[in-house]
């Protein structure tokens, strides 16, 4: 080819040339992703945590649903048997309020259970690469990060109490107070209480009130059904007929009796425990670790408590509910396609990350490492030495 004065553009270096009005971002490196980039994508599709989304991102659950189907099944079966076998008899012999009360409790239980399971518990979105770089700059004086640095903490003074903020290596930020990283969901969750396998989700700031209402109404429902079934069987066994006869007449009641008897104690205990936590504005996580119990001999008190049981209860259960920070249904901006392709490349390595979590017990090995050969230019802190122990 003859060399001209102007620079000839090599057609092979151009992106797919047909649309003359491309968005200004270079699709050249994307390759197979160019078709998908034409359809605007929502943020839940590139969410880095271990969650699953349904209904276009409106419903969020943990990747492992745990025993949520079992919980739902038990509740539905027990309540179904109650309405079928016990209610007709009790309405005839006692009062028709019984199915009404039972129905209200059942509706409350199911709705709050679904809300606890499907609501974002207060997940903190991970730091953007710029933020992470800024924090690194503030911490690292050596400038050489080829080895795993020691755990980083920052101390803040909250209501005259010293609180240590830990650095999260997965989310690349200092965790706000009361925030904890759930390894099952791979997210930092605000006011992290615990990860509940029965509801298949973390319990955190945004769904704690749903969870509390769920266990309280479930304990009422279980106790109510237990009481009604006992009354039913007692009434049937009257007149010298005996308990066995009563059970034979109403076999469903036997099943309910067993289920309720074994679950009522644990659920009542759990409700009582969480009532104590609500009244003192504590989380299960803090209570188990003994963060504010003064075990180390220092004079520590809970800095978040309002020092009044009533105010604590009002705050935890009726306080303002912050909206979800992860904006699942928002659209990805076009100019962040380079960043999202970085995030997409991270997604296939989630499997390796989870292996590291299981074996190593910590996610501190993940420092922007990428197993796949990445066409994206190196992010800060990414290096090939990923298997450093």
């Amino acid at each position: 080819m003859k060399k001209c004065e102007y620079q000839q553009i090599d057609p092979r270096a151009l992106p797919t040339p047909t649309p003359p009005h491309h968005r200004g971002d270079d699709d050249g490196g994307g390759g197979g992703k160019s078709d998908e980039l034409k359809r605007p994508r929502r943020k839940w599709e590139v969410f880095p945590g271990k969650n699953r989304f349904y209904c276009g991102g409106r419903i969020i659950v943990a990747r492992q649903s745990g025993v949520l189907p079992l919980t739902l099944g038990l509740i539905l079966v027990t309540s179904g048997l109650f309405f079928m076998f016990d209610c007709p008899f009790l309405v005839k012999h006692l009062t028709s309020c019984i199915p009404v009360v039972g129905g209200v409790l059942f509706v409350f239980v199911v709705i709050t259970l679904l809300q606890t399971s499907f609501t974002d518990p207060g997940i903190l979105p991970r730091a953007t690469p710029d933020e992470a770089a800024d924090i690194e700059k503030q911490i690292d004086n050596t400038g050489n990060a080829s080895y795993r640095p020691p755990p980083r903490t920052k101390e803040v003074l909250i209501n005259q109490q010293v609180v240590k903020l830990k650095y999260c290596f997965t989310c690349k930020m200092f965790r706000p107070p009361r925030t904890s990283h759930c390894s099952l969901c791979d997210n930092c969750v605000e006011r992290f209480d615990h990860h509940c396998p029965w509801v298949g989700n973390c319990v955190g700031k945004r769904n704690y009130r749903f969870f509390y209402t769920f266990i309280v109404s479930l304990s009422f429902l279980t106790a109510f059904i237990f009481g009604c079934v006992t009354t039913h069987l007692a009434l049937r066994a009257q007149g010298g007929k005996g308990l066995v006869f009563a059970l034979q007449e109403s076999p469903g009641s036997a099943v309910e009796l067993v289920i309720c008897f074994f679950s009522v104690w644990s659920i009542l205990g759990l409700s009582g425990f969480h009532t104590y936590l609500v009244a003192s504005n504590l989380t299960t996580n803090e209570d188990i670790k003994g963060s504010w119990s003064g075990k180390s001999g220092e004079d520590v008190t809970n800095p978040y408590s309002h020092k009044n049981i009533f105010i604590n209860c009002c705050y935890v259960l009726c306080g303002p509910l912050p909206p979800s920070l992860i904006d699942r249904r928002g659209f990805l901006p076009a100019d962040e396609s380079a960043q999202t392709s970085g995030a997409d490349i991270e997604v296939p390595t989630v499997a390796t990350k989870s292996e590291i979590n299981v074996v190593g017990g910590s996610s501190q090995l993940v420092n922007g490492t990428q197993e796949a050969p990445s066409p994206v230019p190196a992010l800060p802190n990414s290096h090939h030495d990923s298997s450093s122990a």
Partner: protein
Amino acid sequence: MAETHSLQDLQQPAVSSKVFVQRDYGSGTTCRFQTKFPSELDSRLDKQQFEETIQTLNNLYAEAEKLGGKSYLEGCLACLTAYTIFLCMETHYEKMLKKIARFIKDQNEKIYAPRGLLLTDPIERGLRVVEITIFEDRSVGSGR
């Protein structure tokens, strides 16, 4: 990677750097940002203006998270309806967030954009930081 420069690219100002204003946890988990003036903005912005912006933001967030009669009423009503009311009603917090978004847009238009800066709404960064983008001053002979 071969890049084709379109006229649109040349007209967009280049990002010189980003400054992050971190959260202030001194009063607990309520949303507050530090009012310390970042040194990178020294040449572009008045300290007082910056502090005013951040203080107003802090006040708006405090109002959103305020425990008062109205928020308790909202909470109790929600509890009685098994929280289904959240499906149809906008909470006080969400209304305040919209107000904050309008405030930031207003501040950007009046104060920050003329100085080549851009405030990013903290909600887009998970309420962790107030991100201030500093654009390269490409204006030749504008005398600002």
